[in-house]
């Protein structure tokens, strides 16, 4: 397919056309943190960002969402299913976050059972990815299998070449998004393509400095759980939700009914296997009573069950979990263990 290009000065035209057709989510800053939020008319996306502080997944899998509502009426209980899905464009997402959608796509359709809330939104979403100009501190996307210059799952990929973006269209949906503003695009010249390739090469060279070894993840996970480093790690874990809530692939949720004055709603919100109450059962028994059992689940889900059951690693190397308040970096720990040959 011919590569296109769009001048940065024409971007607002394209965004305007997209917004006329769909809800457009793009990186914006809110009280000092960047996140994906719906652009209102006149809003400018913030495209010179490192990565958003909170992950892309929240557009399709919100932190808290209403599943059904109910109301007691003289005729009986009225129950309403909630469907807020609508045509959506994600604009300017980083390759790691885009790749993270792959894990969620598989998890939310595991065994042929579809999560309707995810699937409805996902099927109506077009993803326009933006290649990183420089590595985000702590990122190790390539070590986690991310294609940094043409990520899997993107419909369109943009590479910054200064005054313009080189545009790769990867799917029919992507083509449709570009066609909405066809006069804003021109065919990319040879020197534009060279500039884009060079930008990609520079990025990959810089990323190589942050690479870690995650080959043979299942063996690594098991070896790590036997290593002396493990004891210090689980002993210091505070069992908070940072590493899961910020992770573009974690997808655990809790469901809870909240009622008030004859009506109410059933919500779901993020949950995490790190939480002390995640496995607490009625009667008080807790199958994972300490951070040791809880963090074992995290390690195994990301590096063993994920590859085994979903065919992909549960980590895309975004580095967000390095916000851990007690400096737990599971990926780095895993990369440092010695993986022994099976006997």
């Amino acid at each position: 397919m011919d590569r296109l290009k769009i001048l940065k000065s024409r971007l607002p035209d394209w965004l305007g056309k997209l917004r006329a057709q769909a809800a457009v989510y793009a990186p914006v800053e809110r009280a000092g943190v960047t996140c994906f939020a719906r652009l209102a008319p006149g809003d400018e996306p913030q495209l010179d960002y490192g990565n958003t502080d909170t992950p892309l997944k929240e557009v399709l899998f919100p932190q808290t969402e209403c599943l059904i509502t109910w109301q007691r009426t003289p005729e009986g209980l009225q129950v309403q299913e909630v469907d807020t899905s609508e045509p959506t464009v994600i604009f300017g997402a980083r390759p790691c976050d885009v790749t993270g959608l792959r894990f969620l796509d598989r998890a939310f359709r595991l065994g042929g059972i579809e999560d309707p809330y995810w699937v409805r939104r996902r099927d109506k979403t077009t993803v326009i990815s933006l290649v990183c100009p420089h590595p985000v501190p702590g990122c190790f996307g390539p070590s986690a299998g991310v294609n940094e210059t043409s990520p899997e799952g993107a419909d369109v990929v943009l590479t910054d070449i200064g005054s313009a973006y080189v545009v790769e269209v990867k799917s029919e949906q992507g083509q449709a998004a570009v066609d909405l503003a066809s006069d804003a695009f021109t065919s990319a010249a040879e020197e534009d393509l060279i500039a884009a390739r060079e930008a990609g090469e520079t990025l990959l060279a810089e990323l190589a400095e942050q690479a870690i070894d995650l080959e043979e993840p299942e063996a690594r996970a098991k070896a790590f759980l036997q290593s002396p480093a493990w004891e210090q790690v689980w002993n210091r874990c505070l069992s908070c939700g940072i590493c899961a809530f910020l992770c573009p692939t974690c997808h655990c949720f809790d469901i809870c009914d909240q009622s008030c004055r004859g009506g109410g709603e059933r919500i779901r919100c993020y949950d995490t296997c790190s939480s002390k109450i995640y496995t607490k059962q009625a009667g008080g028994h807790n199958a994972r009573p300490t951070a040791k059992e809880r963090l074992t689940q995290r390690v195994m889900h990301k590096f063993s069950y994920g590859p085994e059951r979903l065919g992909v690693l549960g980590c895309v190397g975004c580095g967000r979990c390095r916000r851990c308040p007690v400096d737990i970096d599971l990926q780095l720990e895993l990369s440092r263990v010695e993986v022994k040959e099976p006997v």
Partner: protein
Amino acid sequence: MSNHTDAVRARAKQLLESGEVTRVIGHARGTTPYRSRPHFASSPEQTDALIHDVSCGSNLAVYVSKPKERVAVIAKGCDARSLATIIHEGQAERGNVLILGVSCEGKLDEGRLLRKLDFPPRQVKSVREEGDEVVVEGPAGDVRLPRDDVIMVNCTYCRARTPAVSDELIGEPVPPREEADQYPDLGGLDAMSEAGRAEFWRAQFEKCIRCYACRNACPSCFCPECFVDEYHPQWALHGGGQFRGNWMWNVGRAQHLAGRCSACGSCQRGCPVDIPLMLLNRWMERATNQAFDHLAGMSEQQKQLAALFRKSEAKASEHG
């Protein structure tokens, strides 16, 4: 200067060799030169990894939960305040905690430090203190930064730079900061109208993802069942990203910490969306301090705020 690594290691080793304690809770070097991590030494060999420098900010009292045998905690002034508080509240026997005090001139705020550098964080080779400066060794040599510009803001108003409660002290005593009895950090909030303050906090609380790192990093948050985890009754709506529940959570947390907060900053340090929780904690501290002359953990004898009644409390009403 507050690199006490050698002294901390030596004393920790002695304590474990002699069997005086079964465990020493301290810090070790983290994944970068500007990060430390909690470290637990249960054998003399494990003390080799201990460090104590300007990066050792996190409050270690959070790891003291009804110890059955004697443990030692490397305690800055704020850790010691927290220990005194939780011991008073029945979370540990005094005899089971050896408070190994360290004097402290403030600990790093990672965000403030990194914003001052014009090179990527991975290029930081080392961080050390010299006089009143923090010296960062980068790709083009040393970068010298005034300490007050890169430590936690709450450290610049610290009244406990020398632990008020401890069994031993490592390092020379350091006097409290001169600003310690004032609250210049609250000036911005004070200058706002009530509506302006409400708007400020709305924007901050809307960001909250309800990860509860602020709670879990806090030594004073030891309830086996936190109000926010209860379903019957449900005190706060569950789930992040929605203002009503977030407001209830953040205000509820701050109020439960009134008179029990050591101003260590661990909650704010942990918050992944940079909510300035210390402004809230300091606001509560100022209110309780002015109304009741009470500061948490400044002596072993003092009563808990909620267990205190003095005639002078009459003035409390003036402060709303």
